[in-house]
């Protein structure tokens, strides 16, 4: 009975730190790590601290630089888009609207041909040459227009391509057609040839006082022409519409004319 209690007392004394065993151990425990180990550990600590400081000094700069660059890029992009896309601006009047406003007198004078031509609204001096992208598809109608004398031609507005693009006077037209963007050199030269042929036709027509003849060359497709005829019908210019329709049928013999136009023009 006295054994365990003695051991317990000794153990309690040990736990309190009041034990000969602990003293004996501590007296002998003097080993220390070698100096080179100390140096390595402290060097590691210094290295880690230096790396941290380097990060702290570099990160704020690089972070703000990246943010500033990103913001600048976004602002430049936004401004560029806003400037280059005029439809986005308030109060913008598309080019096609201007055409609609200005073409009726011109078209009227051209379509009626003679007496109804107004001296006060002379035809614009600018010859509305076809845009480069329109040229290839216009080969047939322009060719027909140049060989067959008919005064009825669609107004410049009739070309959808013109509605979509800014039309330049022929002297200010771009020297390279849209086809030039293709990598195929043959296609580019072919397009240039076509363009030059059409240009010469337009000029020839202008010299003969037949500016109106050149205008069909600006027609990009039959739909635009038919649209123009509809406008003439709406304006009660039936005679001009009939002449235009006849011309249309000569140029596009295989194209179906909408029933509404036929009824409006041929019912009388």
């Amino acid at each position, binding site marked *: 009975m006295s054994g365990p209690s003695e051991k317990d007392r000794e153990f309690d004394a040990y736990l309190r730190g009041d034990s000969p065993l602990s003293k004996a151990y501590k007296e002998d*425990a003097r*080993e220390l790590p070698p100096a080179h180990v100390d140096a390595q550990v402290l060097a590691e600590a210094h290295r880690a601290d230096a790396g941290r400081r380097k990060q702290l000094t570099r990160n704020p700069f690089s972070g703000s630089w990246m943010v500033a660059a990103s913001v600048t890029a976004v602002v430049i992009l936004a401004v560029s888009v806003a400037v280059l896309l005029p439809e986005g601006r308030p109060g913008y009047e598309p080019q096609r609207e201007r055409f609609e406003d200005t073409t009726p007198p011109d078209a009227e004078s051209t379509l009626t041909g003679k007496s109804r031509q107004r001296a006060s609204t002379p035809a614009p001096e600018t010859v509305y040459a076809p845009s480069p992208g329109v040229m290839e598809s216009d080969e047939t109608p322009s060719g027909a227009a140049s060989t067959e004398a008919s005064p009825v031609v669609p107004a410049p507005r009739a070309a959808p391509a013109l509605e979509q693009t800014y039309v330049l006077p022929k002297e200010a037209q771009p020297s390279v057609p849209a086809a030039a963007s293709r990598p195929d050199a043959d296609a580019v030269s072919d397009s240039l040839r076509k363009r030059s042929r059409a240009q010469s036709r337009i000029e020839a027509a202008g010299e003969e006082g037949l500016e109106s003849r050149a205008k069909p060359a600006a027609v990009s497709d039959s739909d635009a022409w038919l649209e123009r005829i509809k406008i003439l019908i709406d304006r009660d210019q039936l005679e001009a519409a009939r002449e235009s329709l006849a011309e249309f049928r000569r140029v596009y013999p295989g194209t179906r004319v909408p029933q509404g136009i036929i009824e409006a023009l041929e019912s009388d």
Partner: protein
Amino acid sequence: MAQEESDEALMLRYRNGEIRAFELLYERHKGPLFRFMLRQCRQHAVAEELFQDVWTNLIRSRERYRVRAKFTTLLYRMARNRLIDYRRSASANPGHDSAFAEQSAETSGADPGPQNRLEAERAGVRLRALIASLPADQRDAFLLREEGGLRLEQIAEVTGVGAETVKSRLRYAVVKLKQALSEDP
């Protein structure tokens, strides 16, 4: 003044970039931790390597340091984990080091060997040899208590066992050592 500062405060300062705080911390704990490692693996070269690894791990994980427990609990847990890894790798490759073989002998309570007996004539050496002959769990508890200065609950936290288990292990270790010292002049 700095010597009076707690380990936790020093570690926090070091975490915030004060290298001087680490130097104080290292100075305070390098001896006990090194002896803890040395008594556990009993090979100077291995003890140095493991000791250095523990401090390196502490340095690398300093930014994650939070005061959740006593600093020494964290330090000795890292040390013990490193020892376990070392023993595991030594057991996977028995020829790797003789420390594990020694460890096995100690755990089974075998005689430290004739060479240790000769050295044991000196009191300190003898005590160390007796400590080395303790089973690993008891030696762990004794060294954590003596070198780390940990209380029973802290030893329990480091070793992952209950406080009563630690108390029992420590009690066995103390009784054995006292008995051996009194029997073997």
